[in-house]
């Protein structure tokens, strides 16, 4: 008998307000949280806007020592972990630590701290041979992203498998998919799974400037993220995090836990095409969707809502639209599809988990979040993208998809446990 896996706790740190309640208000009201970058002076850059999180480490309860040690993305992950555990009502101290795992996603990990330390060591870029007289002992903590899941593990006392899944922009979906698998196969009973990224730093902004992947719509930050709109011209970078308590279903039920959703299926494929480019046919994403539905043992017509990758680049929106038609057939035209990146931006490795949180809340509230800023759809994007305002709808089963550099294409199916065959 296959073990089933459910989400019993959620923690988020996203642009536009802290915590799950603020997050869901923003989405269900169709408000946007993208703005001119305030974390550094963005004026030398092509794209100067982002979704920033108003995160106060001290108010979150981090000690000065922890703040010095942990990168911003790590702090986000730990804060979300605390919230997720509290939300789940799980007494982690009463569990066998060996039966708790951690699966954390991130694309650029400690980029913020790396850049800060680089400026100190290199005299703001003047020295190639860096000056080790200014070396912080924490430099080794930023060199490898492994420290991030380690901090999450310490925060809950996990001693089972602990890992970072770093699959670029599908990390957030893939890390949760990995955690689900660890429970299904019986290795552990509980996994803290999710993702965190804080890429709003000069080096990452410059990366995407160089390939014109981010939007230059600097004069109108609130309306700059326009997935599926004919006028869209790139994504809006963002930071954020979401963590979940994943539990084996029978154990969760036995303790009377609240259940947001069951993770019914997950699959990932690679396009083996280009590190950043996408073909227009959507073939591999469609295959991932097919495999995820297959694992969930659900027909494609069961999907009540599709949470799109919807980054707001021309190539993504067309690729994804093709993938949905290819995998869902005629149902692609009947099912609402929306992109929350229109409101919270694109937080790289984290967004896949933030979108899972949105899916879980859509199931809980029977509300489909909208695609903000969508006024005139690209004629090649002809599905129902839920423009501007949220929609009340019975939502039992959700499909969430992601696409990332490296060619990764991932799909996850979440549903009410009662939906399972």
């Amino acid at each position, binding site marked *: 008998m296959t073990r089933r896996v459910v989400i019993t706790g959620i923690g988020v740190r996203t642009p536009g307000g802290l915590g799950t309640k603020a997050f869901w208000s923003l989405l269900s009201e169709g408000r946007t949280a993208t703005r001119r970058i305030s974390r550094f002076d963005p004026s030398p850059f092509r794209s100067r806007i982002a979704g920033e999180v108003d995160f106060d480490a001290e108010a979150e309860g981090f000690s000065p020592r922890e703040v010095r040690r942990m990168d911003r993305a790590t702090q986000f992950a730990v804060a979300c972990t605390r919230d997720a555990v509290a939300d789940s009502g799980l007494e982690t101290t009463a569990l066998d630590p060996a039966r708790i795992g951690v699966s954390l996603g991130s694309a650029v*990990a400690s980029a913020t701290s790396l850049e800060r330390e680089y400026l100190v060591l290199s005299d703001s870029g003047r020295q190639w041979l860096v000056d080790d007289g200014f070396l912080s002992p924490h430099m080794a903590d930023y060199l490898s992203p492994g420290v991030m899941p380690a901090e999450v593990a310490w925060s809950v006392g996990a001693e089972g498998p602990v890992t970072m899944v770093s699959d*670029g922009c599908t990390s957030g979906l893939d890390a949760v998919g990995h955690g689900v698998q660890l429970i299904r196969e019986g290795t552990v009973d509980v996994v803290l799974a999710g993702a965190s990224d804080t890429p709003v730093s000069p080096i990452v902004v410059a990366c995407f400037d160089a390939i014109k992947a981010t939007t230059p719509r600097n004069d109108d930050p609130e309306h700059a993220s326009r997935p599926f709109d004919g006028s869209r011209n790139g994504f809006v970078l963002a930071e954020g995090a979401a963590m979940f308590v994943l539990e084996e279903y029978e154990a969760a039920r036995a303790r009377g836990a609240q259940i947001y959703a069951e993770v019914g299926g997950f699959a990932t*494929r690679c396009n083996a095409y280009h590190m950043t480019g996408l073909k227009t046919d959507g073939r591999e994403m469609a295959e991932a969707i097919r495999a995820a539905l297959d694992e969930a043992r659900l027909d494609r017509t069961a999907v009540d809502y599709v949470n799109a990758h919807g980054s707001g680049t021309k190539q993504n929106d067309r690729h994804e639209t093709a993938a949905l038609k290819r995998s869902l057939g005629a149902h692609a035209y009947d099912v609402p599809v929306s992109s929350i990146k229109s409101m919270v931006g694109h937080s790289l490795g984290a967004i896949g988990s933030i979108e899972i949180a949105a899916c879980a809340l859509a199931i809980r509230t029977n509300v489909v979040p909208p695609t903000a800023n969508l006024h005139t759809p690209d004629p090649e994007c002809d599905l129902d993208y839920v423009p501007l305002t949220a929609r009340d709808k019975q939502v039992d089963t959700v499909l969430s998809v992601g696409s990332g550099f490296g060619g990764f294409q991932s799909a996850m199916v979440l549903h009410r446990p009662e939906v399972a065959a």
Partner: protein
Amino acid sequence: MNGRTDSGADAVVVTGVSVVAPGGLGTEEYWKSVLTGRSGIGELTRFDVTRYPARLAGQIRDFEAADHLPSRLLPQTDVSTRYALAAAAWALADAGVAAGTLPDYDMGVVTSTSQGGFEFTHREFNKLWSKGPQHVSVYESFAWFYAVNTGQISIRHGMRGPSAALVAEQAGGLDAVGHARRTVRRGTRLVLSGGVDSAFDPWGWVAQSASGRVTTATDPERAYLPFDTAASGHVPAEGGAILVVEDAGSARLRGAERIYGTLAGYASTFDPRPGSGRPPGLRRTAELALADAGLAPGDVDVVFADAAGVPELDRAEAAAISGLFGPNAVPVTAPKSVTGRMYAGGGPADLVAALLAVRDSVVPATAHTTSVPAGYGIDLVLGEPRALPVRAALVLARGRWGFNSAVVVTGPTR
């Protein structure tokens, strides 16, 4: 084959291997260096290292990227990715897998790196801050990130199956192979897997030193001395290994030329929180991997140790091994002593060494180490390689902050 699940799955075997290591480019050169103790450790020559306290490195000196990769890949890849791409191609050739051997969705890629494309990104940080954002490379967005090797290998070889990049510092390479095994068990016929690292630019170099675990010794023969009374830290190295992990039935079906061995067991754990007073998780990890393989400690013919080269960590590992197997009850070795520590590449290289030990019925010696404290209670193979039949080997890896991973390999005929 998507419906297949873990229960009753076929064996998962290794049908191709390749190593890119200091002193040993390619599997057989690597194995020769390990068996003869030919060290790849010397003073780092990529930049003027004399201003820094640590100067010795396991540096790859005989790899000309242009000889191994299409020229269009050179501007867009860090040196670590070039190693990964070369190793991947060699491993596939070794396994007799070419384009079209298997359908695209039946082949996946799972790799690990602990540092990403670090030298590449250091250059881009330098350009950004010394010249301005418009000077940053169009390749920086994907040359740096930790998924780069999985993505590049997937593209080069048309592998479209389930793929991933895992990071668990120096334990990540074994985790990648463990996850490749899981992926095969769930229905993907072949997964290319392993790990590679390199960070031999000045920033990467001092960042590695910041761990406090890098030796400042200056004699290459007396620098990285795992389990030695004089252990003073490790020598950082670059390189790694890639393995072709395959479903046994599928390998038979396509007429695979050879099977190096079976990935019989895998486990990973995490140490208790610092200050908890409870023992580290390495022994438990080894026990779980053995249980997964259905083997008892007495079935294991050799242990490939993590071999940190830091007294406190060596003592803890020796205690785990002697506690599980009994004092001096099983030969222990550390081929890393000739290469230095290749971070995420170290575990997969040890795995290849273990499979070659199975093939050749020989256990390599731990180079450079001469004097092991009696209290460690381990039979560390020293001096000369030891000839003995190897039917099952346990490979251990640890990562900073508390990662533990273990893989059990068994011979093809077991």
